[in-house]
């Protein structure tokens, strides 16, 4: 009786072990062979235009394999490169998606190789005001505008705030969803906008006046958007391409764009070559391909940003509904680098009531 019990259990253990081993061996090891170009990027870029870019670039360069790695947000992709560099080397050859505000720190940490601009002929098609990096480490590949979107089914046109200041009006009590500048680039852009508008100590007083209008300040864009779509509040901090995206995905244009005084905060996303790459020439060709009309025409509906190449055709509905503000707002990245820690800390103290 006892022996049989033991045997049964051994059979059970063996079966479990077999299942685990089978599961462990399920996937084959990845193939080695062609010349690899490893691109670190953020997840929505990986989920958006990356596959088409990979296919297109590999078709142009037989024998080259493009590998996209997306460790999360743009900040997380940069963090992984920096951590890997600190340990003596990274796989990344190219980083796609560094924001203009994080660039000074990344350059200070030695992340990027200086570019040879003669290898980037497509850069000539990018307007000078978008080619912001005067240190020559990165090239812009798209730009977008952070502003307020509103639900036109709830707020009528004559009821809308005409300025940032009017957002603090009691009639908008609990009507706005903001996003945390510490954890989200959209939230960060909005905070920078208020600093550009109200100046250094002035922005804090504005946020203090704004507090009653805030329903909440979420950690990321998705959480904010879900609450907005569920009708928790009729306004949120978001992108000026949202109406176009709503039409594209859900055939619905109820989300509309506000550009108070023709303003919205400009974000420019850039790409650079990671220091220590052993394929610098191929990496340059990749950056130039990123600026070609072929890739730039993917940017509107695959990344919901605006192309930087002025020769790029955009779809009609995008041209009609995606808004480029008359007066884009932008802070000097060096100014941001010098003050960001204090600004974020002051902002967090105000929001948590710990001033």
């Amino acid at each position, binding site marked *: *009786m006892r022996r049989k019990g*033991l045997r*049964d*259990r051994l059979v*059970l253990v063996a079966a479990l072990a077999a299942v*685990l081993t089978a*599961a*462990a061996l*399920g*996937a084959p*090891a*990845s193939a080695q062979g062609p010349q690899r170009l490893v691109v670190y990027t953020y*997840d*929505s870029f*990986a*989920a*958006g235009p*990356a*596959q*088409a870019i990979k296919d297109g670039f590999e078709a142009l360069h037989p024998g080259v394999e493009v*590998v*996209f790695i*997306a*460790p*999360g947000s743009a*900040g*997380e992709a940069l*963090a*992984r490169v920096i*951590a890997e560099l600190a*340990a*003596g080397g990274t796989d990344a050859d190219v980083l796609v998606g560094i924001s203009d505000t*994080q660039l000074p720190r*990344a350059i200070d940490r030695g992340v990027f190789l200086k570019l040879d601009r003669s290898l980037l002929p497509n850069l000539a098609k990018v307007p000078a005001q978008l080619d912001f990096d005067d240190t020559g480490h990165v090239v812009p590949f798209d730009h977008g505008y952070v502003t307020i979107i509103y639900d036109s089914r709830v707020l009528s046109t004559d009821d809308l705030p005409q300025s940032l200041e009017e957002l603090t009006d009691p009639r908008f009590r609990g009507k706005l969803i903001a996003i*945390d500048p*510490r*954890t989200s680039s959209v939230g960060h852009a909005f905070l920078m906008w208020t600093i550009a508008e109200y100046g250094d100590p002035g922005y804090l007083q504005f946020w203090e006046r704004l507090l009653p209008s805030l*329903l*909440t300040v*979420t*950690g*990321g864009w*998705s*959480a904010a958007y*879900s609450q907005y779509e*569920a009708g*928790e509040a009729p306004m949120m901090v978001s992108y000026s391409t949202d109406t176009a995206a709503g039409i594209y*995905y*859900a*055939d619905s244009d109820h989300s509309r764009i506000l550009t108070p005084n023709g303003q919205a905060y400009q974000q420019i996303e850039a790409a650079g070559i990671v220091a220590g790459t052993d394929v610098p020439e191929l990496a340059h060709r990749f950056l130039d391909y990123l600026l070609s009309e072929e890739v730039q025409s993917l940017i509107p509906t695959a990344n*919901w940003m605006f192309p930087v190449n002025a020769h790029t055709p955009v779809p009609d509905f995008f041209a009609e509904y995606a808004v480029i503000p008359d007066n884009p707002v932008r802070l000097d990245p060096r100014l941001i680098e010098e003050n*960001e*820690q204090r600004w*974020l800390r002051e902002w*967090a*103290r105000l*929001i*948590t*009531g*710990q001033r």
Partner: protein
Amino acid sequence: MVHDTRHIASIMKPGAGGSTVGRRNRWLALLLLLPAAVLLLFFFYLPVATALLEGFREAPGSASLSLRRFVSLLADPYILSLLRFTAWQAFLSAALSVVIGIPLGYLLANRSFPGKSIVTSLVMVPFVMPAITVALGFLVMYGTNGWFNEGLASLFGFKVRVLNTLWAIVVAHAFYNGPLVARMTQGAWERLDPALEESARTLGARPLAVWRDVTLPAIAPGVVSGAVLAFIYCFMSFPIVLSLGGARFSTLEVEIFTLMRVLLDYETAAALAAVQAVVSLLFAYVFLRLEGRAPSLFASARARRPRPLGGKARDGWLWVCLAVLLVFFGGPMLSIVVDSVRDPAGGVSLRAYERIVSEGHDFHLGASPLRTIQNSLRYGAIAAAIALFAGACFVYTTVRFVRRRLPFLETLSLAPIAVSSVALAYGLSVAFRGPLSLVPQDVRIPLVHGVLAFPFVVRAFRPVLEGVDARLIEAARTLGAGRWRAFVDVELPMAATGLLVAFALCFGLSVSETTATLMLARPEQVTMPVSVYRFLAARDFSAASAMAVLLMAVTGGVFLLAELLAAWVRRRQGGKTDA
């Protein structure tokens, strides 16, 4: 029946009446501690030390060390207020988890009802849900226009605000951790011999006295184990806090994240992460000390036989409990299912599911949806195997050889979940490029998940192993069984629930982990929650929900299989005791 007298006599403290540890046993004990030591030393303490050392540097990259960052952090009233709030919300969350966990644990240990295995597996599923999915589930469930408020409005004519308050955070944390406490309580409860309570009652004790003097001390190790894990887990939480409560309720982890990922100030981040780890482990230590002081422990040879949840009047409140718990846990999960079949253009459709299983869909670059499922299952299985092996050896040694409470060592074994995940991810990526670069890429993620799951195995396995009467093993050994045979024949089946829960927690932890995974993953190593985040990033909300449903279904299925397996083992064990 000799049972009764023997069981009343079996009230004993663990370790009482044990023989001294012999020389041979000492070697065996050391050997059994080896897997845990290797695992934690190389894949946790080494990378964490690398990361946290930055906090002691005089300046970035400098070799001279100082404590000045710690001094200025601890003198900063803002940091102290973050620390206070972080501890407070974690305490409230752990408390609510206990309030939910005890009745649920009672139900699972003492009653049988149709579909019990499914309910048991279902309540563990929240543990694997990505934070953003839980936030969405809570929005549909508790939002202003959510099911809960619509129900309130139609029944009583008013609504309450849950979302974006401290309560949303606490309730969401209990949604994650209540089942954890319940399953650990269940494990301890099942090992409490019903005869003890019966004899206390026969001797004239009032129900409250029986509960206080017999039941509570017996289940305390399980409850405390669950509560300690819940506390640490909530102490480290941040996506849930920011998504459901908002930035007004910032925790320390948000500050660490900001320093590390936005400001790239690794040194201050490391110092703060060290403070955070020490504080949460200090709390854990105090809990474990309190548990060690519990009046007495009861060891039992006989598992209790759950009786059917019946129509008797005294079972009425249990039905109510069951119903409330089903709504509490099932509601947010069901709302994700509903969201996944909602067509953006109106109506119901399965198009989101078609999108996530279609091959060649370009959202995942090198990892088809099928591959992401396979990855998640594989990492979960290996991580669980690693953590179960190392953890079971560790617990067996401390319970059977040391036979003393070692709160300090036990606290250290909890460290993997008490260190900031962004700091740990940084340390790991440095370590795998340096001293650990020889570790093959394919096993890195499961190894790290195994380390993170280790504390769960220790906490889940320990209370049940302690509940197994040491004299039974001695009896088995007197009859000629070796230590291994005694372990396999006597202790293993009796500790089945504990091991099962440990497995589910390890598997769940691995399946849901994203921070370290993203830091280490190659493109083809995409897992299911990463895929959920990627669909969200691409604004495909219904596909994200569909992938989350798939994640819940797959892990729920694994839990159910494990549950059925354990039920089978228990039935065989039960049959043997009767024979």
